[in-house]
Each structure stands twice: as C-alpha cells, then as structure tokens.
C-alpha cells in the first residue's frame, strides 16, 4: 500500500488573531437599536458605577474572530480523531436539526406536564430504548456526564446497602480503570481495593474471588476494559459477587464495542452509565455538554433519582413519590437537547446500532494488524473497539510516545490517547471508531508508518513536531506549572 496513500496533513495560510479585548475600539457596536421610548431611570446607588470593561466590537470582528480561531482547531468535522477511550465518532447533522426544532428549543423546564407531553414522551421512550440496548430494567436521564453517571450509580449501590442494613465500606476497582472510578467510590464514602490484571490483560476470577469479602460493596468494571480487551471471566465474577451480597457497577465508557451484542443484565451488571457523547454520537468535549444516563437492574430501580416520568394511558406525568430514591442529581431534567440528539441517533440507526459496534471492532483490528510490525503491541490478541501500542520499538531512537503523537498532527490526524492506561508503559491508545472509511483508515496507517520510519531515520523531526501547525511544540510543563488564566482587560 503506502506509496499511493496520501496523508491529509499540509500547510496553508494561517491567520493571526488577537484576543477580543485587544480588538475592541470604543463606540464600535454590532447593532444599532432604535431610540427607546421608555424614560431613563437612574440605577440604585449600590449597583451604579462603571461596568465591566467589555470590548466594543462589530459583528464582523466577532464573526472573523471565532472563524479564525476555529481554523487553529481540529475536530471530528476536520478529520479522523482516533483518541482511544473517547469514541470520537462523527456527529450526524440530523441530530442537531432535530434538537433545534422550535418546540424543543422553546420548552421551559418549569412548564406544567400537560404543556410538554412531547418532551416527556421523548424522555420516557429514550429511557426505555437505553434500558433495552443494554439489557437492563430502567434508566435515569439526569446525570450530566459519564463521571456524574458513575456517581449516580454508586450512590444507588450505597443506598441499596444502607437500606439492606449491610455495612460495606470497600469497592473493588481493576487497575486498568478510568481514574474517575476510584474517585467516584471515594466520593460515595467507600475505600478502593485495586484489583490487579491477569497476564492476558483482563480480570481473573481467582484474583477477584480472594478480594471479595463481606466488607466489599461491589465491583466497578469497564467492559471491554481500557486495554480494549473483553473481560471474558466477568460473568462468573459477577455471579460470585452477587452470591456474596455485592453489586456490580459497569462503566459504560466502552459501550461502543458491544452495543446490541452484550446483554449487560445477563452479564450481571446492576448499573451502567451510557456516555451519549461517545456511543450515541452527541457532541463531545468542547462541543458538549455531554450526558450520562444510567440504566439499572431490578435491584436498583427503587433508588433511581427522581422525579421520574411515568406513562398513564396516553399521557405522561412526573412521579415524585419515590421513597427510596437517591433524589435529584441535576437541575431540571438532565441535558435535554443533548438527549434529543441521542434519541435521534437511536431512531435513525435502528437495528444498525449493532452494526456500528461491529464496524468499530473491525476498524480497530484492521488498524492494529496493519501496524503491529512497526509498533510494540503489549497484548497481542484480537481487540475490541480500541487497542494499545507502546513506543518500545521507537525508544532506542529516543523517540517518546509524545513525539509520535505530536508528529501525527503534522500529517493531518488528531493524536491518539497517550500515557493511558497507566498499566502499560508509555501507551498509545488508538480507537478509530466505526465512522471512518477504509480510505481514511489507510491514510492513518500510512501516517503511522511514516512516523515509525522517521523515528529511525530522522528522529529530530519527531522531537520538534508539530511543525506545520499555527503553534509548534508547546511547553506543556510551563503551562502546567505557571498557567496564565486571565486576559488583560486594561
């Protein structure tokens, strides 16, 4: 291949842009309002005085400002974004079109239930669809992100143990877990017991079995795990945990690998959050907000946050009489229009949701197989939706994982996740997602092969990369040690 495959990275004209504060000129304005017919009244003394020093700007200045800034950025609409663990799939535009329907945009969260029957039916149906997709009993849409969903799930598990009067103070967390797992356990008053991985990169029954005492409230587990490997002993592990009175929290961060394929209820999961900004194609990162609905098994249904939408006949109302509920987790009803996007995605995909996971796994395995001759693959087996390389083959040339990632920017790709998971030394974690075409995957493979070649022949390029961007290698150490977080408004 490679010779004919062109990587997209190129240079072009990049425009400088000042901060808006530096571009303001007194008296400039984006609009001219008609003379007001209302007589002037003076402000009360305690709020009178000089206002904040906002810059005076024309509309054109503001439009150009943000357009120019956007050209320095790289998003899923720019090119492939194989950021492992983040599932940066393309966000279909129809999601936005539907979320922008005037009925959704204009609905006020304090409107009475009779006035928002459409919104309530969407909440009701989306909860049911999500429960069906993961194989559980009921869902809450309240949590505003994945970590918030974890908090919701673990608060419910804590409430369950409190209600059943069992004193359990510890939670098992595998060493590959996202850092939010132990943090969540700690927020809920549990201490963490770290579970080491087996030699093949996943949890082993015998290890977990030894740690599961009557002081342990349960297990928090991500499946597939952060190495992109399916937890093959999880069913047996979960059964043992239930037999000993514990519950299992499933971190749904990697749901994109198993959507429609794994029945989490039958696997023994009691609560799972669904990152709609990953798996269900709603905007991610700065384009958010995200949302982290949580689906639960029968055991946890009574503890779901309230109020909850219930359907009676053909109409919907808010149920507030929920005596065991952990209460509200979000002002109003969650990130509603983000959830509309997820709803739109589920309806437009239909049974093809299963196909999305299938192609995500196929794409990851394709890229892995095409590159494993040049990059060290610590767990050499079939992967799920993502996989982990290291820089071990580039290390002798003094090329770090960071250097590899930075050079990919020059070649037109967002870098993969680096230095995570921590159990792998200098990890490079690649998740192509199902939405990349074969041509784009081939271009990414060509770029990775070029970088491996450069590591041998011209490592200095890699140490200095990126070279084609508006700003070259940033001093992230200085940025972390001496951050400047304010603009000069004077």
């Amino acid at each position: 291949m490679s010779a004919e495959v062109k990587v997209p990275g190129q240079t072009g004209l990049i425009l400088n842009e000042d901060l808006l504060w530096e571009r303001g000129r007194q008296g400039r304005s984006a609009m001219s309002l008609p003379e007001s017919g209302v007589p002037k009244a003076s402000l009360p003394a305690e709020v009178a005085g000089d206002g904040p020093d906002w810059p005076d700007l024309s509309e054109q200045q503001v439009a150009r400002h943000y357009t120019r800034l956007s050209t320095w950025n790289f998003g899923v609409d720019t090119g492939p974004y194989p950021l492992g663990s983040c599932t940066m799939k393309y966000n279909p535009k129809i999601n936005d079109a539907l979320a922008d329907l005037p009925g959704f945009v204009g609905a006020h969260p304090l409107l009475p239930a009779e006035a928002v029957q459409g919104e309530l039916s969407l909440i009701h149906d989306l909860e049911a669809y999500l429960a069906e997709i993961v194989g559980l009993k009921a869902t809450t849409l309240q949590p505003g992100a994945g970590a918030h969903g974890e908090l919701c799930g673990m608060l419910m598990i804590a409430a369950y143990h409190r209600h059943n009067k069992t004193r359990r103070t510890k939670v098992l967390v595998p060493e590959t877990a996202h850092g939010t797992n132990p943090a969540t356990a700690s927020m809920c008053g549990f201490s963490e017991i770290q579970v080491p991985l087996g030699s093949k990169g996943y949890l082993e029954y015998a290890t977990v079995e030894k740690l599961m005492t009557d002081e342990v409230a349960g297990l928090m587990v991500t499946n597939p795990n952060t190495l992109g490997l399916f937890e093959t002993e999880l069913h047996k592990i979960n059964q043992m945990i239930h037999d000993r009175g514990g519950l299992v929290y499933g971190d749904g961060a990697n749901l994109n690998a198993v959507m429609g394929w794994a029945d989490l209820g039958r696997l023994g999961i009691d609560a799972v959050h669904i990152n709609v900004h990953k798996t269900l194609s709603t905007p991610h990162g700065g384009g958010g907000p995200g949302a982290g609905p949580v689906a639960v098994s029968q055991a946890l249904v009574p503890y779901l946050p309230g109020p909850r939408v219930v359907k009676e006949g053909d109409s919907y109302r808010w149920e507030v009489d929920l005596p065991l509920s952990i209460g509200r987790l979000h002002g109003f009803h969650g990130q509603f229009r983000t959830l509309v996007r997820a709803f739109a995605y589920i309806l437009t995909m239909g049974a093809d949701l299963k196909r999305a996971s299938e192609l995500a796994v196929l794409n990851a395995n394709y890229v892995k197989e095409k590159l494993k001759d040049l990059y060290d693959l610590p767990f050499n087996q079939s992967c799920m939706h993502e996989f982990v390389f290291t820089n071990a083959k580039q290390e002798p040339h003094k090329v770090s994982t960071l250097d590899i990632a930075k050079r990919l920017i020059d070649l037109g790709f967002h870098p993969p996740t680096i230095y995570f998971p921590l159990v792998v030394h200098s990890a490079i974690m690649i998740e192509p997602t199902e939405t990349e075409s074969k041509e784009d995957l081939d271009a990414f493979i060509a770029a990775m092969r070029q970088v491996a070649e450069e590591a041998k022949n011209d490592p200095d390029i890699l140490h200095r990369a990126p070279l084609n961007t508006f700003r070259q290698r940033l001093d992230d150490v200085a940025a972390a040690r001496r951050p400047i977080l304010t603009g000069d408004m004077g």
Partner: protein
Amino acid sequence: MKELNELILPTNVKYHADHEWVSAAAPFKLGISDYAQDALGALTYVELPEVGAKLTLGEEFGTLESTKSVSPLISPVNGTVKAINESLSDNPDLVNSDPYGEGWIIEIEMEASELAPLLDAAAYKALLENQA
C-alpha cells in the same frame, strides 16, 4: 527515557522497589530515584503531607503530578514526617533536576532499623535490570 547505565544511583541512600530512596543514615530524607523522575517526566505539582503526619509502610502519603500522570507516593518505612521540602511547591522541577539533593521530598523521624528491608544501589540496579 534514560538507559540503565545513564541512571544516577548514589550509594549513600537505600532504595525501595517503588522507586523511592531514604538516606542510609540520619537525618533520614526521602525522595524518588532518578529512574522514577525520568519515568514520570517533568513534574508539575508535588502534594506533600503535613509535618507530624504518621507514615505507615505501604500507605500513600502524597502525590506526584507530571504532564503524563498522577502517581501516589507510597511510604517505604514506618515513621513520622519531621520536615517537608517547602521549595517543591514553587519548584517541583527540583525533583527532576536533582532527585537526591535539592529535590528531596520529606524528612522522616524513624528507627534506623526501618532501613533493613530496603535495597542498596547494586540490588536496586539489579531490580531495574530485571524489569527491563
């Protein structure tokens, strides 16, 4: 990353398998090894314990934050924190530039016998070689 033969491994300190060192004689200072600072990369923040805090073998007493990750500091001995290196709050990079000198992290009040299970430089080097 440094090669094994590039690592500085002084013989006047004792090492723990978690890549910390403790002075071989009083006053007992503690820091991280050259291998550890090199593996972590440039440090951006050091979270220190309070003076007087109790140290228990195998338990966390602080954290090191680098541009790559956050790592716990695990105590290699039992004792009490006698002093902390205040200059690390403004200059965490001292741990990178001088891990056995200006980059010390805490000073410990402890029995000299706590050193017995720790490794000397040769044994620690052998441990690193086995890891590689």
